[in-house]
């Protein structure tokens, strides 16, 4: 064995440069590149996504309540080595000498925020602070307040009974969405000033938040320790926070996994073809070595050493490529990943080696056995064939090993079982089609020696070899088509989330008497008339289960409720349960967001009690809705039926699209000072960036799979090139001209390509629809363009590479060909 190792080591380079080992090495490189880049990437993306979600919360974990939270939770957090912070937020008037403004006052403890950044500048715009809270007696405010109340540096404002000095302007803070739904401007004060302000009385609208962050382990211990929490406290974790950004990234991670799974499978297919050809060629060498006295172990040692060296070099190359690719993708995503990414771990390195060892030994070990056990007598008989029944077990072994390995690697049994089923069905279908083709062609009597007839005859003569080729072509095309479709639809669905006319301004606080003026303003300046949605500020008081008399306010944590009333279902909403009201209905009804309903444990038929505009009323829950928040139009958790809402006092809101260059919003705020406008441009831009970067990243990964697919096709075309070469040379020698030889090869590859392409398309449609519905939550409709294009390109590719594979023999003298073979 040692001698064999040494021999393998010595002869490695001369063997490595031969074609078969090259294809094997390339398949390994591709598999490793794919798995390592996706793993490098997945690791880093996931960590960064989590950090990002945490920064939306301002912490890893938050307890929030409408009433004071027991300080024991903070103590428990500290006991578990967590960092802690507190905020108390309430609505109050900010009063200056000659004006006032309803503001969301956020009082914070010094350690706020635990995640994300609070950015405060002075009045000249230079940063002064990026975390914590102002000292007592001081306050930071948002630019909006500065403008509206015309505040200067060091001006004094009062909140409740306390006078505070303004010495900072809030540019950004993490947990923007954590408090009141609605868009009140923000002021941040020290939490210790809250009692002096004296604004919090029973019944005030207050949100108390205790914030925690630390290692996952400590957080889990903490969650264990706090046990059951009172119903009025809600526990929020970073993982729960979903936004468009997270969704697009999440879907792209799914895609990356899918792509790397496909790349590995396709690489295994091409490795299988390469190893088979390699083994067939090496059978002569192994038998010859046997003749010259080599033992089984010597041959085994030789082969294993060569494979190990290939694994070593190809894996290192693959890891390099993988690292380069993920750096490229990360730099593409840089714009949308605000947090610094953690350095890549060793995991991809290990994964890369494990993958290549697997690819090589799953495909090569059966051949190792054949090679080491070859009988020296083969040399005298000139018999170097490996029969296909041996190959069958080889492929079965490879398949089983592959799935065990992929199961461990991807830990997604569901996805794998679908893929396995697809593999089995498609292989069976392709086998059947190949068999039928051979029987059909076999029954035809090709009398004359025209080129294409020879080609068809060759398909029959090659028998199982032709079937194998149909299977390999078909499988490679199948996975490529499925991935191409997934890629296109994913990117389309992302870009659809933000259509061109997505509104970029929200206008709040429009009163009945403003409407005519606002409409005419926009008609004059931008030639459109906005549509207005009523907004009723209210509170949800309690709920009553149908048939029960008990009022309950448990689970109704978000007591602050913005309500609206509508005659018909808004465009971006979909009924998921129950029914929308009939316009003439006189009962008071309410329709709720399905997620809110779930979190509040509400059911259709429950009666909800609200207060709004000083009066109390109730409404029956008659439907749940799914809301498309990405639509950026006014959306409401609670929609009342006209009979319930019509008579309540309300203002209006609207969302409008203003071209970015236009400055009509400036004059708008001057003309309508009481109407609040919120610019969503930055948010929309960020989502646009996310989508285009994620799309680009998806393209890179797809490209990798595409290369692997092309390699598999090439490996398959070349797998019986030796035999073809010999045949062409013989045909040449017995007088066939180039045209005939060309025609015969063309006919053969054309038929094989068409059949495998058609089968691949049929199964691609099935597999794609499964993947779309089960793993991506997308609607699938076959993309005729992609299917057609893939089919055409696939067939043409097989055809051209087939011709190229025998090109040399067409143009060289048969004597040379025969001598070399």
């Amino acid at each position, binding site marked *: 064995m040692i*001698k064999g190792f*040494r*021999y393998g080591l*010595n*002869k490695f380079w*001369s*063997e490595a440069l*031969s074609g078969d080992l090259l294809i094997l090495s390339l398949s390994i490189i591709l598999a490793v590149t794919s798995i390592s880049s996706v793993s490098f990437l997945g690791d880093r993306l996931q960590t960064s996504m989590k950090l990002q979600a945490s920064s939306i919360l301002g912490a890893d974990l938050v307890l929030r309540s409408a009433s004071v939270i027991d300080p024991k939770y903070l103590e428990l957090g500290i006991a578990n080595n967590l960092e802690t912070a507190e905020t108390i937020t309430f609505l109050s008037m900010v009063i200056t000498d000659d004006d006032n403004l309803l503001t969301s006052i956020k009082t914070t403890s010094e350690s706020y925020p635990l995640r994300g950044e609070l950015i405060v500048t002075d009045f000249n715009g230079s940063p002064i602070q990026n975390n914590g809270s102002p000292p007592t007696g001081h306050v930071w405010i948002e630019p909006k307040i500065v403008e509206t109340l015309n505040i200067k540096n060091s001006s004094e404002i009062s909140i409740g009974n306390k006078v505070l000095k303004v010495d900072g302007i809030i540019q950004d803070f993490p947990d923007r969405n954590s408090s009141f739904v609605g868009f009140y401007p923000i002021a941040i004060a020290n939490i210790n000033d809250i009692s002096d302000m004296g604004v919090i009385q029973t019944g005030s609208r207050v949100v108390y938040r205790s914030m925690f962050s630390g290692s996952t382990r400590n957080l889990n211990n903490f969650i264990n320790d706090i046990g059951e929490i009172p119903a009025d406290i809600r526990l929020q974790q970073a993982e729960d926070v979903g936004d468009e950004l997270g969704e697009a990234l999440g879907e792209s991670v799914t895609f990356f996994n899918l792509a790397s799974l496909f790349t590995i499978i396709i690489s295994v297919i091409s490795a299988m073809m390469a190893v088979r050809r390699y083994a067939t060629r090496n059978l*002569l*060498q192994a038998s*010859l*070595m*046997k*003749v*010259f*006295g*080599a*033992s*089984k*172990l*010597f041959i085994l040692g030789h082969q294993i050493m060569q494979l190990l060296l290939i694994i070593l070099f190809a894996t290192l190359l693959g890891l390099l490529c993988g690292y380069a690719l993920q750096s490229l993708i990360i730099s593409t995503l840089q714009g949308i990943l605000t947090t610094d990414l953690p350095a890549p771990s060793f995991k991809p390195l290990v994964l890369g080696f494990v993958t290549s060892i697997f690819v090589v030994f799953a495909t090569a070990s059966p051949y190792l056995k054949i090679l080491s056990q070859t*009988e*020296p*007598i083969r*040399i*005298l*008989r*000139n018999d170097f064939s490996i029969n296909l029944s041996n190959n069958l077990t080889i492929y079965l072994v490879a398949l089983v090993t592959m799935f065990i390995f992929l199961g461990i690697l991807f830990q997604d049994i569901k996805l794998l079982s679908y893929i396995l089923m697809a593999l089995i069905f498609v292989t069976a279908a392709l086998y059947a089609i190949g068999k039928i083709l051979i029987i059909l062609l076999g029954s035809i009597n090709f009398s004359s020696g025209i080129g294409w007839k020879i080609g068809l005859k060759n398909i029959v003569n090659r028998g199982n070899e032709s079937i194998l080729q149909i299977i390999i072509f078909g499988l490679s095309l199948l996975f490529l088509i499925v991935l191409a479709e997934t890629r296109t639809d994913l990117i389309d669905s992302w870009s659809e989330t933000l259509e061109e006319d997505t509104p970029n301004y929200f206008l709040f606080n429009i009163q009945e008497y403003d409407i005519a003026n606002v409409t005419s303003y926009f008609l004059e300046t931008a030639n459109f008339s906005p549509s207005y949605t009523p907004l009723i500020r209210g509170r949800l008081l309690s709920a009553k289960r149908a048939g029960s008399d008990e009022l309950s306010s448990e689970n109704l944590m978000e007591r602050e409720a913005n309500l609206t009333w509508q005659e018909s279902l808004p465009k971006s909403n979909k009924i998921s349960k129950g029914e929308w009201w009939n316009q003439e209905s006189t009962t008071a009804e309410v329709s709720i967001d399905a997620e809110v309903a779930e979190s509040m444990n509400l059911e259709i038929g429950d009666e909800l009690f609200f207060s709004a505009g000083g009066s109390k009323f109730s409404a029956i829950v008659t439907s749940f809705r799914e809301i498309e928040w990405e639509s950026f139009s006014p959306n409401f958790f609670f929609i009342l039926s006209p009979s319930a809402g019509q008579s309540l006092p309300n203002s209006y809101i609207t969302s409008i699209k203003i071209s970015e260059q236009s400055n009509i919003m400036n004059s708008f705020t001057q003309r309508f000072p009481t109407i609040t406008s919120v610019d969503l441009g930055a948010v929309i831009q960020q989502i646009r960036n996310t989508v285009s970067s994620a799309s680009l990243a998806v393209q890179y990964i797809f490209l990798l799979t595409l290369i692997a697919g092309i390699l598999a096709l090439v490996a398959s075309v070349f797998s019986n090139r030796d035999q073809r070469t010999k045949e062409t040379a013989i045909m040449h020698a017995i007088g066939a001209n180039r045209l005939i030889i060309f025609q015969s090869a063309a006919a053969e590859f054309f038929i094989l390509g068409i059949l495998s392409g058609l089968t691949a398309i049929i199964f691609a449609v099935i597999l794609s629809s499964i993947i779309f519905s089960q793993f991506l939550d997308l609607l699938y409709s076959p993309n005729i363009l992609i299917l057609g294009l893939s089919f055409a390109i696939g067939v043409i590719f097989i055809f051209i590479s087939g011709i190229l594979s025998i090109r040399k023999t067409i143009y060289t003298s048969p004597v040379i060909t025969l*001598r*070399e073979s």
Partner: protein
Amino acid sequence: MVFLFNDKLSEAFTVMKTESKIAENTPRHPLKDLILEVKNITKEVNSPEGLLTIVKDINLSVERGKPISLVGPSGSGKTTLLAIMAGLDLPTRGSVNLLGSNITSMNEDQRAQIRAQDVGFVFQSFHLMPRLSALDNVMLPLEIAGDPDAIEKSQIALDQVGLSARSKNFATQLSGGEKQRVAIARAIVNKPKILFADEPTGNLDQKSSNAVTDLLFSINELINTTLVLVTHDLLLAEKCEDLYELSDGSLL
């Protein structure tokens, strides 16, 4: 032409038969140095038509230094017999004593060991490794045996077949005759005591064939080996001291 060939053949057989009669009648000299002794070899194989006997009850022996040749029509079992004598294949019945060891009772790796040390082979279709240079091809048996002086010895062997100038060429860049000479260098590089050749000139034209023939016999003396030659070429066969004819699996 065919007639002439047959004529010559039968003439040769007459000569041979006389000789072999002499050999049979004379009691074997106890000091005779037998390098190969084949006793009652029979080879049967399974075929679609049932059990097929391809070699039947063969007895023969080879003395050190005395080349023998094996002739017979195609399909008569020459290659089969050669393979059994060289330990590449096992007989169904009978025993082979090669270089003092009963190779029929050995296992595959033990037989391989003997081949590695003392046996050389030349084949009709050369069987050079196309991706290796001439030198690397010649080195193969030494590398298998783990000989540290593989390169020097191989260069000497290439020199002996007159191809030292082509040692860097790849097998595909050589003519048929040159390939066979490289193959001969490979066969003799481990100084084998016995050299088996199965139709070494079968794939060569007349000129190369002559060159290879001359080489084989001069080598036989040069490195003091014993040639066991299977051939169609009667001229070649006649150069050997003993000539056996196979027909339908039996010796005539």
